[in-house]
């Protein structure tokens, strides 16, 4: 395996390829297991559709979501307005297309804030134990003691009603869950034989975190993350519905439900379609999250691996 320096690039490339091979194989297996579950595929499709709308929605919307046309208010769903119009004459479909991105933005921001905090605090608590663990967990317990939505409402009210503040409020409510999750993982990984073997050969704490604890935390984080997206979208919509989050005229879906609430009997389409939108999105994330969880489950992978190998090499 030792080659002269001239071939350094080639040998390095081959080594890299050889090292990447098992990782790509594992990814391949994950996708294969996912494909096998119809529900997971449905979830993936729903999520993809939602993401597509979130990114490109504003470009394909047929009407201006903010333009007020009082003469065209409360038109029921028809060929010109697929989802009808609301009390200001705005096309519901276009508003929904524009509003998708707010939901996803909320989800991403909350997670981008909550997950690193969770990993940091949970990691310290789990790895070191002792007083650090006690202090961090009791602090976390304080936040967990409150019903999450009420807590979010209080923070939102204190910061002032806006979508951005709602996202901050939700982050504050959400980080304890990740702290608990990572702490549990770190604790169980810390007790394993392979960590003890590494420690007995002289590995320091930083090495253990980097090489053993973090990689083993990735899959639970991914699964929880995906399932949480659904929750956060719902929570953001709930806060907006209650008036704490998005403010009019922002076409955030929760806000839209709230705006159309009083007109439910005359113009059901104003609330129902955004509601359906939220339902489908959350369903999609839940199904996909379950699918990912199953796809990463070692037992299921081992059973499915046999079938997968047969297909690739037949």
């Amino acid at each position, binding site marked *: 395996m030792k080659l002269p320096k001239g071939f350094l690039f080639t040998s390095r490339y081959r080594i890299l390829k050889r090292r990447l091979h098992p990782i790509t194989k594992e990814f391949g297996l994950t996708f294969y297991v996912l494909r096998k579950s119809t529900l997971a595929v449905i979830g993936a499709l729903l999520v993809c559709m939602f993401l597509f709308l979130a990114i490109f929605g504003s470009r394909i919307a047929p009407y201006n979501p903010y333009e007020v046309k009082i003469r065209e208010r409360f038109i029921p769903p028809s060929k010109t307005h697929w989802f009808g119009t609301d009390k200001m004459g705005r096309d519901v479909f276009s508003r929904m297309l524009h509003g998708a991105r707010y939901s996803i933005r909320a989800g991403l921001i909350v997670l981008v804030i909550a997950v690193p905090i969770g990993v940091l605090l949970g990691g310290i608590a789990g790895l070191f134990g002792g007083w650090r663990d006690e202090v961090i967990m009791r602090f976390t317990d304080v936040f967990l003691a409150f019903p999450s939505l009420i807590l979010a409402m209080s923070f939102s009210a204190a910061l002032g009603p806006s979508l951005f503040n709602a996202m901050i409020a939700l982050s504050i409510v959400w980080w304890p869950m990740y702290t608990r999750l990572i702490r549990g993982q770190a604790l169980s990984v810390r007790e394993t034989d392979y960590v003890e073997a590494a420690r007995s050969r002289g590995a320091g704490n930083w090495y253990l975190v980097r090489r053993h604890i973090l990689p083993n935390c990735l899959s639970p984080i991914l699964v929880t993350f995906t399932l949480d997206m659904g929750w956060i979208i719902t929570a953001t919509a709930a806060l907006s519905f209650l008036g704490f989050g998005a403010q009019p005229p922002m076409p955030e879906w929760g806000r839209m439900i709230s705006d159309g609430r009083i007109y439910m009997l005359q113009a059901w389409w104003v609330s129902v379609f955004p509601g359906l939108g939220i339902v489908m999105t959350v369903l999609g994330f839940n199904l996909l999250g379950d699918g990912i969880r199953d796809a990463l489950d070692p037992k299921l992978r081992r*059973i*499915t*691996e*046999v*079938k997968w190998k047969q297909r690739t090499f037949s």
Partner: protein
Amino acid sequence: METENVLLAVENLKTQFFTYGGVVEALDEVSFNIIEGEVFGLVGESGCGKSVTASSILGLVQKPGKVISGRVLLDGDDLLQKSAQEMNQIRGSRISIIFQDPTSSLNPVFRIGYQVAEPYIYHQGKPRKVAARDALKILSQTGLPDPADKARNYPHELSGGMRQRAMIAMALTCEPDLLIADEPTTNLDVTIERQILNLVKDLQEEFGTSVLWITHDLGVIAQICDRVAVMYAGNIVEQASVRVVFHSPKHPYTQKLLRAIPAVDSSGENLEEIPGSVPRLINPPSGCRFHPRCDHAMSVCSGKKPIEREVGLGHTVACHLF
């Protein structure tokens, strides 16, 4: 030997598991008889199918597994043909089973006394007070110290040895014809294991129960069994009285297995190694399943499955050498 009654006759038992990765041929026409009053051992390494045999006999094979063919005759009655209702009646009263891990076989939320009394209530319809009294009696027979006090404990409050005694008590409440013991002493310390082995032997003699003892530990087999069947990859490769199997084994696998165990005089020398490894049962080797690892393999071994032939009094071997 005088005329003995065959209590349990297992004939050509075939069990398979239809998993996602393929069909696992767990049991490949397994046949053996258990005589009334004897302790019959089933020994083999992990994956050989010994536990599957127990669950097949009791009708407890879980999906995706299924007993494909064969007969299990308990006093002439085919258990595989019975309905679920009838098997419920048989399990616990005519055939009992004790498992390897009493922690998971004893319900953690019920007290020991209650769990031991349960078979009396369910199978024999005894009133609660009578059942409780009988439960205490059988618990003390298993050598559990201070049974009245222990009966009020929950399983997690007892040690492993005590839990196993409770399990044995539970299994023997209705004086079953057959007791199946699936690795009951594997997790116990050696000194406790010795106590349990002696206990089972004493109780077995007292109640006249036949025992099917399943284990991977050949030492335990040597100590407690009258006859033994050696299993490999879903087949029984050799069957004989314990003395014959240990002193003059005929099947190549049995011979190698016995030589692989460190013995009194083996220190410093190499132990016998069986080349290769236990085959997967999804696409098992053709013909004799041991042939890829056998020193004496002939051309017929890979083509035809060997039938069990009698090579001595009560001694059968499944090998083309005979």
